[in-house]
């Protein structure tokens, strides 16, 4: 009897407890904390100097190149090696607690081995808080090519953390102007995106303008005044072979490629004033895409090769327009000031970047194509020629520093800036090359 009662009681207690539990979970289900904003700073990452076995080539260390790459993106804040508590080169030596103490999110460790005339890198990337390896790879390159190997590692690290392919192995094309010898010297150059390993591809005493990469990264189109007037050339980088593709009366300028590499958009004024044409590179036939008494120039395909962004002063001053398909009625994109020119859309179709005049200064701005919101990205004042990295995360442009034209890289949202090492004379007209797999 007693037993029974107690049983019932205990059952009741159990039921009550269960009821409370239900109540509690239903309350808990209501507690939902929403995080809608992230940290407003770059991600702390540690690139530990790689251990080395065998003879390594002189010059910059692989890890310092990777560090510089990540810092340049503006998305990462590499920890200086002298602040590290240990310098592990493999997983068993990585003490996550130490790295967490240093506020680090990711740690890259690795080792370099000399293997004949090649250098091999074995490296691993760890997520400090999750205590997990998120990347592990072995890669090799000729010893003379340690920079390529380093940029490859940077690309992999960047992608593992951000989910976006890195663009550190891509190339830049730009034009330098050297006036030191009396005669101006224009030089078309191609370099790594950190400005290193620059090579002159063309030299002229007449202006060279507007280099544009073919989608396969093998050719450049550009404007050269070598014959006394502007003409468009295509330059094969491997062979050095050049072809003059457009030499009509008047302007031949502002070449950009279609994503299949089969045609160029260009500005010609052969019929009286500056209009946008498309040239089929096989047949060299040109088709007129705009027809207006105003200046239409600086055309670039959108991310799908459907529509065309361009500059036109049909409303008075130069503004950015978008033509949904060739021949369609252009729609004006920019309204924020009376001068907006030279549009460059990113590869995802999210933003268009351009030169924007405000309060007497020429700046770089972008417009979000989804909501037409305009953001000014730079704070210098003679900025021009914006070019977006192929992964859409970085932007290079030309600006003035103590009277000289220099190139500056910023993150595409206007964050951290990185100036490319100065060279002799002016550096301008940067064009960011494609990712070549």
């Amino acid at each position, binding site marked *: 009897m007693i037993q029974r009662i107690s049983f019932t009681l205990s059952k009741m207690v159990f039921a009550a407890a269960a009821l409370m539990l239900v109540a509690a979970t239903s309350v808990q289900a209501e507690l939902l904390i929403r995080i809608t904003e992230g940290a407003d700073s770059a991600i702390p990452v540690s690139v530990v100097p790689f251990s080395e076995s065998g003879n390594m080539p002189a010059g910059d260390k692989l890890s310092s190149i990777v560090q510089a790459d990540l810092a340049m993106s503006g998305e990462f804040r590499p920890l200086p090696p002298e602040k590290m508590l240990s310098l592990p080169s493999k997983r068993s030596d990585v003490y996550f607690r130490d790295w*967490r103490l240093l506020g680090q999110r990711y740690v890259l460790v690795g080792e370099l081995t000399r293997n004949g005339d090649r250098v091999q890198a074995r490296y691993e990337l760890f997520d400090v808080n999750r205590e997990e390896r998120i990347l592990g790879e072995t890669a090799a390159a000729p010893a003379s090519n340690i920079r390529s190997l380093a940029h490859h590692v940077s690309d992999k690290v960047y992608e593992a953390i951000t989910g976006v392919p890195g663009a550190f192995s891509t190339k830049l094309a730009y034009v330098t102007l050297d006036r030191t010898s009396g005669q101006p010297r224009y030089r078309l150059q191609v370099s790594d995106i950190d400005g290193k390993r620059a090579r002159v591809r063309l030299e002229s005493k007449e202006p060279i303008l507007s280099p544009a990469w073919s989608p396969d990264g093998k050719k450049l189109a550009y404007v050269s005044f070598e014959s006394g007037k502007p003409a468009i050339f295509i330059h094969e980088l491997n062979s050095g072979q050049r072809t003059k593709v457009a030499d009509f009366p008047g302007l031949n300028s502002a070449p950009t490629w279609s994503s299949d590499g089969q045609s160029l958009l260009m500005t010609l004024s052969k019929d009286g004033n500056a209009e946008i044409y498309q040239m089929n590179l096989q047949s060299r036939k040109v088709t007129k895409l705009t027809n207006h008494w105003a200046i239409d120039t600086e055309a670039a395909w959108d991310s799908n090769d459907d529509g065309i962004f361009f500059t036109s002063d049909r409303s008075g001053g130069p503004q950015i327009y978008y033509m949904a398909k060739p021949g369609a009625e252009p729609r004006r994109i920019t309204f924020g000031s009376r001068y907006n020119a030279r549009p460059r859309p990113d590869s995802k179709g999210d933003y268009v970047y351009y030169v924007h005049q405000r309060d007497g200064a020429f700046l770089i701005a972008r417009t979000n194509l989804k909501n037409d919101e305009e953001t000014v990205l730079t704070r210098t004042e003679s900025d021009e020629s914006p070019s977006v990295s192929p992964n859409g995360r970085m932007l290079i442009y030309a600006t003035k520093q103590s009277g000289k034209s220099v190139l500056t890289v910023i993150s595409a949202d206007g964050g951290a800036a990185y100036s490319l090492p100065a060279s002799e004379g002016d550096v301008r007209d940067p064009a960011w090359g494609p990712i070549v797999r």
Partner: protein
Amino acid sequence: MLSESQKYQALIRERLSQAWYPPSSATEEMTARLQITLLPTGELAGVKLVASSGNTAFDNSALGAVKSLSRYPVPSERDTFETYFRQFTIEFNPRRLR
């Protein structure tokens, strides 16, 4: 006047916002839900991804943020802790991307 629970919710939200680095692939459409369990000391006892954003880098950034806090701000009052903070859900969804 904020209740005790609201006050600690706000504190946790603030700490997590500072600790979260949304990856560059993040979009405003991405949401990751994590269920977390705390000890009364504020230490993290467990975390589980209950709804993925569909983007590994994004999910990892959320997990990394949750795991980066060495101690969560929690009320010392035991009932409030048990009711609200023993176990709760955190949703990561960027509203305003940089």
